């Protein structure tokens, strides 16, 4: 039997204006297990500069767009995406 891990460590990627707000484009987060996308966002919003992140930013988990209640797993890559402006 494997004990359920008490924490989940994920990689967070930040882009464009959000990277500038938080002063970083990549960081690791250690969250209590179980953790959802919204928990990661809440943690980011508590960082210096993070209070200007929206409560429900566009997020992608391992390259696919996800909802705030999506569960996070160890090693996941969560990208927090500012409003898109390609073209």
């Amino acid at each position: 039997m494997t004990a359920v891990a008490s924490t989940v460590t994920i990689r967070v990627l930040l882009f464009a204006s959000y990277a500038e707000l938080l002063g970083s484009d990549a960081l690791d987060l250690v969250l209590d297990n179980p953790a959802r996308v919204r928990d990661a966002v809440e943690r980011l919003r508590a960082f210096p500069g993070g209070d200007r992140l929206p409560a429900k930013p566009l997020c992608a988990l391992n390259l696919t767009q996800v909802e705030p209640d999506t569960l996070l797993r160890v090693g996941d890559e969560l990208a927090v995406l500012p409003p898109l402006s390609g073209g």
Partner: protein
Amino acid sequence: MYLTADPIELGALLAMAQSPRHGGVASFLGCVRDHQAGRAVLRLEYSAYNPMAEAECGRIVGEAESKWDCIVALKHRTGTLQIGDVAVAIVAASAHRDEAFAACRYVIEEVKRRVPIWKREVFVDGTVEWVGSGEAGKQGSGEVVGGRSQS
């Protein structure tokens, strides 16, 4: 590869899409404009979440090709672009013009809506703003208008 840091050559995209089966070939170029909301733009800086942007571009091209029986070539620039530079180029080739125009229109609209690419406007007056980010993208003293688009 749909994203490129090098200048986009329309001729190369035409060569990718054209074939003897295709009598209608439509193209769209999105170029860097010298003004935005009445202010003079100096240059644009594009950044992207590359692996997701590549995957999303591939999905969009695949959707257009299956919807209209066409071949689509697509390139989007990253990095620093000057006024007049091509930021995005699309060529859609089909048997007839209606399908080619429709596919070309679909691809540019979906690229703008779905692909994780961001542009930062550098204005002649020295202010710098992330397009579409509202207050979160504000730097300097300029006015910020959310949700607008350059091309």
